[in-house]
């Protein structure tokens, strides 16, 4: 019997639910405009080549084609990138990966656009392909960019590992290989670009940060930001993948050039080839402990394959380096990481942000140590766990928290761990259990501009208008805004008008990323609620003649002794607007450690797996999970994020790999890129939310968008070991490897 439970009550339906369950909601890729053209982008034929000739004449001559554009048509900067604009909008000299754009067309039908693309003639001179980050790092390798192939180095050192290792009784050294995962948002990149009569450009395309898209587009189009309006929510999923620009530059230039609306909607294959992915990493760890279980030394080397362009590669690496010791106290640590350019697919932001990879390796080390020490994995973790007021993993000051020990205590109660390991009667089926723990930073971290804010006002319809520059990517942001605002103000959800996803209407809140949305909305309302209610009551007192102190804000208006005396509509006056805004920064650690975090959330996961020794298949049958991320804002949203993140992690562990050979994707659609289906999920999943925070913690709810994705992989691998005696070091777990291991074991 499928059983998906949690300790949370279910919540009221999401504000965006109606449109979604009825199919009435128009996504940007559903939009049609009069006179609309269809755009298509020509991507490179080679992972690395010189462009010798580019001839667009034959494409231009095709009837129905209205524009063919190349680098010559970029009005401003021919480059984009969230931090460094090193990715050309159109390549004109060299292509560095198969997703590089060379030209684009707009035509009256998608079919004609496709035919026109095929008529563009490009002559390439193939260059040597750099598909392996370690050889790309070699100083003799051809540099893909002027600064060489090492995009970013990051390190952390504490104590002295050379002094630490000799003190250890057990040392584990292992290399872990993590795959390139695709976000696989169900709605591929797309939208419509509309030149307006007043000369402005409207961009209808999903992103995680409308203002950032506006800034990037302004540079490319050589327009002032005010002349661009980015309408950016909702969308059919993102998971980090749509934070960076994708089709926007092409649609925008084509629309401006033709003076007509242009729609681009990438096919799954185009999305796969051009879209960013999760960083493949090779992580080597050497970890030593004394007989007592005390971990003494930990040495880490991370090689991250960042692909052809920077995007958020440096920040992802910093995050991995920061989380290399997780929630443990280790006196001697040496971590060194490299993000390396290759001709492979571009890697960038992905839910988990480097935490998944590093935690897989770290928890793998802890489990192997436990095994060698003949100690229970839970006990070893407990023994080395940080205390509530200890510094963060890179020695930085953080908000005191014992979330790690709370989730560990909770998971200790999981009946899975008490399982009597009696294998089924079938000698070819082995079961095993595993547990893992993680600590995950929220926000962008020290040294990265991380401003946020919001605005609340009473509008002419008598609605309380609450506006944020955050985006609804599917995570349930609107429900979070609704719940936090109604609770802070005391009004009902019908009184609210929520405004997001439109740069003409919203304040700057920063990106909907890094599990920061929920947290920042809560912080905004803490600042907005006092002054806003004050203003409402001042006006109400003036209008009604009652003392302000007698009045309160409630459902549909202002109340006195249990009676509503004024509606919000009656409070609105054109010449006395009631409006408050707030601006502040995401709390960071005061210590100057690039990307160092201040707020963390925690999760512990217990799993049970069944290994089929005949097919090598792994079936996860149970997942128990404890999460500590502060108060729950929206129960359905919270469980949904954890369950959804968990199954995305299950795909990462057992199924998914955007494999490349010679820097070309060998999987291009869902027939070979295998996503978890409903058949792959465990029959039982439990989520326990631990809402307690450290006494005096003033930082409220933390986001839960990422925390559910991190600890599952190491727990599954530990369970496979428990079942078979074989340690897996490479994801996704291959059936062949399991079968091979069977030969070794028997």
């Amino acid at each position, binding site marked *: 019997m499928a059983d998906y439970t949690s300790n949370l009550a279910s919540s009221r339906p999401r504000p965006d639910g109606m449109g979604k*369950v009825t*199919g009435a909601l128009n996504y940007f890729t559903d939009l049609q405009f009069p006179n609309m053209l269809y755009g298509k982008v020509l991507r490179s034929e080679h992972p690395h080549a010189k462009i010798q000739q580019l001839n667009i004449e034959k494409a231009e001559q095709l009837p129905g084609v209205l524009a063919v554009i190349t680098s010559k048509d970029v009005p401003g900067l021919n480059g984009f990138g969230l931090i460094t604009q090193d990715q050309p909008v159109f390549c004109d000299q060299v292509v560095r990966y198969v997703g590089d754009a060379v030209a684009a067309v707009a035509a009256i039908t998608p079919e004609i656009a496709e035919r026109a693309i095929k008529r563009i003639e490009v002559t390439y001179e193939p260059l040597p392909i750099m598909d392996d980050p370690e050889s790309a790092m070699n100083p003799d390798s051809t540099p893909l960019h002027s600064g060489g192939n090492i995009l970013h180095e990051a390190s952390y050192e504490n104590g002295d590992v050379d002094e630490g290792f000799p003190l250890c009784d057990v040392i584990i050294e292992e290399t872990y290989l993590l795959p390139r995962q695709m976000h696989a948002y*169900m709605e591929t990149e797309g939208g419509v670009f509309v030149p307006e009569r007043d000369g402005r450009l409207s961009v209808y395309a999903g992103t995680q940060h409308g203002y950032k898209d506006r800034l990037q587009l302004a540079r490319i189009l050589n327009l002032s930001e005010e002349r661009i309006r980015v309408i950016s929510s909702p969308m059919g999923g993102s998971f980090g993948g749509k934070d960076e620009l994708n089709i926007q530059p092409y649609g925008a230039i084509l629309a401006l050039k033709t003076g007509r609306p242009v729609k681009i909607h990438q096919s799954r294959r185009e999305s796969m080839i051009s879209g960013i992915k999760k960083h493949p990493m090779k992580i080597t760890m050497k970890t030593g402990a004394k007989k007592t279980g005390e971990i003494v030394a930990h040495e880490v080397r991370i090689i991250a394959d960042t692909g052809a362009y920077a995007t958020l590669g440096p920040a992802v690496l910093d995050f991995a380096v920061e989380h290399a010791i997780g929630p443990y106290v280790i006196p001697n640590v040496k971590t060194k990481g490299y993000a390396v350019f290759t001709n492979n697919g571009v890697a960038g932001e992905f839910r988990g942000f480097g935490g998944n990879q590093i935690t897989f390796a770290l928890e793998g080390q802890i489990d192997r140590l436990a095994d060698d020490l003949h100690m229970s994995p839970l006990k070893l973790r407990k023994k080395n766990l940080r205390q509530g007021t200890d510094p963060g993993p890179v020695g930085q000051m953080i908000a005191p928290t014992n979330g790690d020990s709370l989730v560990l205590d909770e998971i200790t109660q999981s009946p899975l761990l008490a399982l009597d390991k009696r294998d089924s009667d079938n000698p070819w089926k082995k079961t095993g259990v595993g547990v893992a723990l993680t600590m995950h930073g929220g926000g962008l971290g020290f040294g990265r501009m991380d401003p946020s804010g919001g605005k609340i006002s009473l509008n002419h319809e008598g609605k309380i208008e609450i506006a944020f520059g955050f985006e609804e990517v599917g995570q349930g942001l609107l429900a979070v805004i609704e719940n936090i605002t109604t609770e802070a103000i005391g009004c009902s959800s019908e009184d609210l008008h929520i405004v997001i996803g439109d740069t003409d209407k919203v304040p700057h809140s920063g990106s909907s990323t890094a599990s920061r949305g929920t947290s920042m909305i809560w912080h905004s309302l803490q600042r907005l609620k006092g002054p806003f209610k004050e203003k409402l009551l001042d006006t109400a007192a003036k209008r009604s003649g009652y003392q302000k102190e007698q009045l309160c804000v409630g459902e549909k208006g202002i109340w006195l002794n249990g009676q509503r005396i004024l509606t919000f509509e009656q409070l609105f006056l054109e010449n006395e607007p009631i409006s408050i805004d707030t601006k502040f920064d995401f709390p960071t650690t005061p210590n100057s450690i690039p990307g160092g975090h201040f707020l963390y959330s925690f999760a512990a996961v217990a799993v049970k797996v069944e290994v089929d020794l005949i097919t090598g298949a792994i079936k996860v049958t149970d997942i128990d999970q404890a999460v500590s991320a502060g108060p729950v804002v929206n129960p359905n949203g919270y*469980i949904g994020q954890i369950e959804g993140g968990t199954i995305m992690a299950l795909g990462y562990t057992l199924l998914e790999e955007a494999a490349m050979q010679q820097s070309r994707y060998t999987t291009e659609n869902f027939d070979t890129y295998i996503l978890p289906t409903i*058949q792959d999920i465990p029959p039982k999943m439990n989520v326990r939310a631990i809402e307690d925070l450290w006494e005096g913690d003033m930082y409220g709810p933390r986001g839960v968008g990422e925390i559910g994705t991190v600890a599952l992989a190491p727990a599954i691998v530990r369970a496979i070991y428990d079942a078979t005696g074989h340690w897996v070091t490479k994801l996704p777990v291959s059936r062949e490897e399991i079968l091979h291991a069977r030969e070794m074991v028997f």
Partner: protein
Amino acid sequence: MIEKVKVNSQRINISFTVNGEQQQLQVEATKRLVDILREDLSLTGAKISCEIGRCGACSVEVDGELVNSCLMRAYQLNGKSVYTVESLSENGLHDIQKAFLEEGGFQCGYCTPGMIMAVKTLLEKNKKPTDEEILDALSGNICRCTGYAGIIRSVKKVIQAI
């Protein structure tokens, strides 16, 4: 690079019903049902995601069976009866839609129209499906957001109410 099979296709006349309404259209013989729905009939509930029959985002009901509308073409449509997600809420929300709302059966919502149609065709044939039958019926519909648990809770809620 060919995403859509593009043969030099003739326009043909087709006659079929969509959500109970008779439709006479002249379209290319190889035009996909999903494009006919979205472009010719402005019914954008059925979504496009993989275009090779692997994700179910485009699922609709044709003559009582769940069909990937990205795989069905105009020349196969004559005399058929097609139902899309838009038909469900013609007289207020359908029980399946209510359950999805209450149990968190969706997040981004992009898979939801297809998923709901898959549940609908299942329950029309089998009012009390077993767990295994539920999983079987929904296994062609991919959801990247929910991890399916909320979807299963939704389906169970509908079944319990029957």
